[in-house]
């Protein structure tokens, strides 16, 4: 028996450029107690389709054809209901768990009030004690202590806790169907696993159907029974999860699966060229980059505990710095770029302290140490054409021999990263996609041929299908252009493939370091182990654990507090790490 049927649903958005057909002819059903994943990239119509079932499309979108039947109603087509009838169905029959965990709760209302108002809106006024009992049960159901959490305001909770509150709200009236819109996209992998397992547990307990919207095939594999693959508003493939993952029919599904890099899986990189590019060797053996006892504190918070390393640069390397948000990895990046002076210790480039150098040395340092940042949307000044970002440093560093030379260099760099110069140069940033912009930033680094490139989460804001391409571009910088790269990321799987050496950062400490095959392939430190076991993979036979296991792992992590040992897993030539 099905609880929700989409029957040939089409959704249109009238815009100034004409009508955009966001969803075309989608038909599928969600069975009672079944979990269905809607997967696709941004703009695929996955969220639009699901929201149509709640009649919550953003203006000016509307369902232009088809029917959506919620079978527990007397008169099942939700599109025919009055606004008031629809209001009563929301939460009581169909509930919604939103994407932005950080911002989904009313900031000026206590947590328990935000559960009560939903109950009162559907069941009428109730006495305080009854409401309290209901909200306590709902919060306990998602593993939160109602005595502590109930009277708090949202800003006093962590992201994972807020998302669990949203789950508690979503299930408090025992709906027939829960729609979860990328419920873990803003969370760390460890928290993601815990929240996802909690959601699965409560959903199973009340026997509701679940629509899980997402873009990560790995997460889907661990979370749902059936998968619907959407592309440009059309349902391209729909079937049981095992069939979709092990025997995908549509090329787009195959692409989605293969775009998830696996630890230990096949490399997505091109084989290294026969003659690798050479780096730079100084006469007296001064290392290219050296950190000496560097630490950083902000007020009373220590972002980075003292650490030292040397990178000689003779053979170009990719060093990965892996950690979750708050681990201090981005602090390291900005210290190495000289954006931020260290609280203690010094950062040396070619033997000179980068925070105490003359204007000329500083310009030389800037030329030789470049960066790619996380957000390709923010990296271009919206006022200028994209050429500005490429041409300005090229001329500023005295590399240009005139306007023609700059133009030629830009075009060559674009081609080197796989962009056709005529389609991107001369455009304004908002006219380009995120992927195109990020590749332009890589092209910019290439034009300047620095010695070191700091790549801070270069692919985390790019659609999955483009990630591999951009990482290939960055990898080429090492192989073909002799640039040493510090790759800062939260993603262990890509670090596994691209790097020569990996450091795992946890709360400002390096907890494990060494060649990726050891550190990520066979981790020894409990934190690294937890990180790796939390990564969702598109592998149905892998055990992702239960909510209880996820909670136990978090407790174990808390017990680690205060133990600062680094597990060193072997050395590579040209890079030495030492704690303190």
């Amino acid at each position, binding site marked *: 028996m099905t609880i929700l049927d989409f029957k040939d649903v089409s959704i249109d958005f009238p815009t100034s450029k004409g009508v955009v057909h966001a969803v075309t002819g989608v038909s599928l059903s969600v069975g009672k107690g079944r979990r269905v994943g809607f997967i696709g990239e941004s703009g695929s119509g996955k969220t639009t389709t699901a929201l149509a079932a709640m009649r919550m499309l953003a203006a000016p979108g509307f369902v232009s054809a088809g029917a959506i039947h919620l079978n527990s109603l007397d008169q099942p087509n939700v599109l025919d209901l009055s606004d008031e009838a629809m209001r009563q169905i929301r939460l009581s029959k169909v509930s919604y768990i939103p994407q932005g965990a950080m911002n989904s709760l009313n900031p000026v209302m206590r947590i328990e009030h935000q559960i009560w108002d939903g109950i009162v809106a559907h069941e009428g006024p109730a006495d305080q004690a009854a409401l309290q009992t209901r909200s306590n049960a709902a919060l306990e159901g998602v593993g939160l202590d109602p005595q502590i959490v109930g009277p708090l305001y949202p800003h006093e909770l962590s992201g994972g806790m807020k998302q669990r509150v949203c789950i508690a709200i979503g299930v408090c009236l025992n709906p027939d169907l829960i729609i979860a819109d990328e419920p873990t996209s803003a969370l760390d992998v460890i928290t993601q696993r815990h929240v996802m397992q909690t959601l699965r547990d409560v959903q199973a307990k009340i026997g509701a159907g679940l629509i899980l919207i997402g873009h990560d095939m790995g997460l889907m594999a661990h979370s749902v029974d059936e998968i619907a693959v959407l592309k440009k508003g059309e349902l391209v493939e729909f079937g049981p999860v095992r069939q979709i993952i092990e025997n995908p029919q549509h090329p787009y599904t195959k692409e989605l699966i293969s775009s998830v890099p696996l630890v230990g899986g096949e490399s997505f990189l091109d084989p290294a060229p026969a003659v690798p590019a050479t780096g730079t060797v100084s006469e007296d053996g001064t290392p290219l980059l050296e950190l000496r006892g560097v630490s950083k504190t902000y007020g009373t918070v220590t972002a980075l505990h003292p650490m030292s390393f040397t990178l000689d640069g003779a053979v170009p390397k990719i060093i990965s710095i892996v950690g979750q948000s708050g681990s201090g990895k981005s602090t390291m990046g900005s210290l190495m770029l000289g954006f931020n002076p260290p609280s203690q210790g010094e950062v040396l480039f070619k033997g000179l302290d980068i925070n105490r150098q003359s204007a000329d040395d500083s310009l030389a340092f800037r030329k030789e140490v470049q960066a790619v940042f996380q957000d390709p949307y923010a990296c271009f*000044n919206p006022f200028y054409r994209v050429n500005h970002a490429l041409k300005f440093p090229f001329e500023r560093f005295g590399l240009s021999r005139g306007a023609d030379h700059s133009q030629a260099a830009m075009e060559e760099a674009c081609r080197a990263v796989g962009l056709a110069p005529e389609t991107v140069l001369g455009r304004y940033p908002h006219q380009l996609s995120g992927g195109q912009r990020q590749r332009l930033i890589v092209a910019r680094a290439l034009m300047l041929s620095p010695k070191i490139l700091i790549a801070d989460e270069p692919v985390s804001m790019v659609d999955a299908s483009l990630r591999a391409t951009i990482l290939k571009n960055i990898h080429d910088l090492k192989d073909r252009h002799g640039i040493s790269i510090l790759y800062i990321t939260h993603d262990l799987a890509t670090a596994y493939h691209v790097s020569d050496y990996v450091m795992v950062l946890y709360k400002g400490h390096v907890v494990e370091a060494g060649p990726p095959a050891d550190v990520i392939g066979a981790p020894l430190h409990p934190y690294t182990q937890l990180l790796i076991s939390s990564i969702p993979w598109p592998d149905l036979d892998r055990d992702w654990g239960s909510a209880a296991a996820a909670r136990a792992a978090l407790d174990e992590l808390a017990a680690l507090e205060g133990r600062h040992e680094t597990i060193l897993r072997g050395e590579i030539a040209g890079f030495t790490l030492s704690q303190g």
Partner: protein
Amino acid sequence: MTDQHADAAAPETAAPDTAGLTRAQIRRMKRFDNPWRNPKLIWGLALLLSIIALGLLGRIFWDTDMVFTGAGMPRQGPVGVENLRGQVGTWTHPLGTDVTGKDILALLIVGAPNSLYVGMLASLIGMSIGIFLGFSAGFIGGRTDDVIRVGSDVMITIPPLLILVVFQAAYGDISLTIMAILIACFVWQSPTRLIRAQVLSMRESGYVQMARLSGASTGHIMFREMLPNLVPYLFGSFIANVTTSIVTAVGLEVLGLGPQRVPTLGRVIYDAINSGALIQNLWWWWGIPTLLLAVMFVGLLLVNLGLDDVSNPRLRRL
């Protein structure tokens, strides 16, 4: 063009839960593409330009010497309007005369641009101070930032009118320019706060970091990277300050504390109230300058709303 119309009017848009797209809606949607071409901005600018045109053309086609006492018969109504003594207004003084026979039209021609001049000058000086302090606070930070922040917090609560009243009471007559400079001392606070906040957020933005990586100097970052993106905000703040400055100037003039020898709209209203124009029903004397000021303020408001739409795309709605 035509195919878009056809597409938008296609039958599937006739579903029950949508308002069918009218041509007017399509036209409004097209405006999304160029925020600077919005009707508020255009109407606002047209109103302001018409006041400037009144000042310029009036000087050519009208005898501005009639701003002086005794230029015509006192208490004349506008064309076709009968005054208390039963005299009907004539084309000699199309907008009538005041109690001393000054020609109202001539007063408007001379006075209206004066009000705009004071507003623009005061706002321009205030903006310059604001840009300087805002960038200093945002860039230098630390103590400098604290001093500027607290300073603007304090000064924003002091009503400029009162300090100016004290000033004028102590010094007597002031010129238009001095008045503008005095007002400017009280309109730098909001641009300072605005620019400081924007600079602080832009400092962390990707493109400023990219510029730093490109070896850009502080001057380059401030003026080439940040300033162009501040333009809509600066315009908006400028216009808001012109309004505040004119309100303050008119307030001083209506209290009789403005420049004594130069005709201003506020001064005309002051004379009218003091001579009992309200009771004698000489409505053209105070009413027409009031209306002109109202046009000026509506124009400024429309320009400001239009600029809001430019700098904040979320406000652009159908």
